[in-house]
């Protein structure tokens, strides 16, 4: 899908005509304090205007060159993520932090991985998933070690898949022995995406021992790992995976690469 074409500058004349409600520094704090009660209003339509104003300011602060203001704003937001704030406002703040947060908000968001509200908890996970700070990965791994319930474990594993950090491999290899098939499938997908030698060793060993349904999912993860190796130019290692899958006792869809 990747071909050299041209650098495309996306710029609309209309952008310059738009009223900007973006605010910075002390004015962000003033705006934030003003809109926060409305963002958590019981009546959904009443939340719309405050949420929109807040969102516009967050987006403006994400522009290149405004890092100091963005950091300051994220700290202010992170300080209001506790249970004293209504859940709709917490979720909306998390949605903004997912797009602009860095290391400054990881600790506050990580605390929400143990929140009682499942929506807050899930958005906290997704917020950390997109956070470029390495501490975010550590926070997800820590939560995974004590996670209850297969859906929650799979959500955390899927976040690790998205981050594809090699540091996750040791914990994920342990999750291949999870009692829930969905978690095992998610874990295999994550290991396939990360595709370090240890990750590949784990999924290629698991593929031959799994039940037919799981074998197909784990085999798909092996194929993904091979694709990642090809992207990195490690062709011989990729061939080794394909050879291992292309044997008569293996499932036909895997042998033809139909995942």
């Amino acid at each position, binding site marked *: *899908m*990747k*071909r*050299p*074409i*041209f*650098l*495309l*500058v*996306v*710029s*609309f004349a*209309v*952008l310059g005509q*738009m009223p*900007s409600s*973006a605010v910075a520094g002390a004015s962000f704090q003033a705006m934030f304090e003003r809109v926060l009660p409305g963002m958590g209003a019981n009546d959904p339509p009443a939340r719309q205007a405050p949420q929109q104003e807040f969102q*516009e300011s967050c*987006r*403006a602060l*994400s*522009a*290149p060159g405004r890092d100091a203001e*963005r950091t300051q704003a994220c700290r202010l937001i992170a300080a209001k993520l506790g249970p004293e704030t209504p859940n709709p406002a917490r979720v909306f703040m998390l949605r903004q932090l*997912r*797009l*602009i947060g860095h290391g400054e908000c990881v600790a506050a968001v990580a605390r929400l991985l143990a929140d009682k509200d499942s929506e807050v908890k*899930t958005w906290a996970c*997704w917020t950390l*998933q*997109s956070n*470029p700070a390495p501490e975010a990965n550590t926070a997800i791994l820590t939560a995974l070690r004590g996670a209850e319930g297969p*859906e929650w474990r*799979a*959500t955390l*594993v*899927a*976040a690790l898949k*998205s981050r594809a950090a090699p540091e996750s491999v040791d914990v994920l290899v342990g999750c291949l022995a999870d009692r829930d098939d*969905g978690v095992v*499938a*998610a874990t295999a*997908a994550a290991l396939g995406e990360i595709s370090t030698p240890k990750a590949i060793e784990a999924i290629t060993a698991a593929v031959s021992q799994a039940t037919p349904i799981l074998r197909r999912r784990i085999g798909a993860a092996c194929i993904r790992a091979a694709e990642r190796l090809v992207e990195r130019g490690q062709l011989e290692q990729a061939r080794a995976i394909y050879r291992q899958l292309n044997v008569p006792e293996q499932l036909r869809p895997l042998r033809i690469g139909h995942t």
Partner: protein
Amino acid sequence: MRKPIGPDEVHLYNSPDPNPGKNVFGAQYGGYTVRHYTDWLRAIRSRQRPVADVEIGCRSVTVCHLGNIAFRLRRPLKWDPVEEQFIGDPEANRWLDRPMRWPWVL
């Protein structure tokens, strides 16, 4: 349109109907689904691009997404189509995907 397109003017490609006069999958599909399937199979056999080529579709819809992201961020963005990343705007790159609830994946 003020007048019909003439025979010597540019026409959009029209996939041939493999079952002319028959409505194989019912009226709601108008026969076009079958035409797309037929065109796709023809492309496999001939090694030519199908009429609804996936890469052209991807590149076309990318432009729409980029416009939407620039509109939402209220700023001009530079796009590198090879790396499929925005240049010099790391926060804009965080708009390139969204979290999916497992087992939904891309």
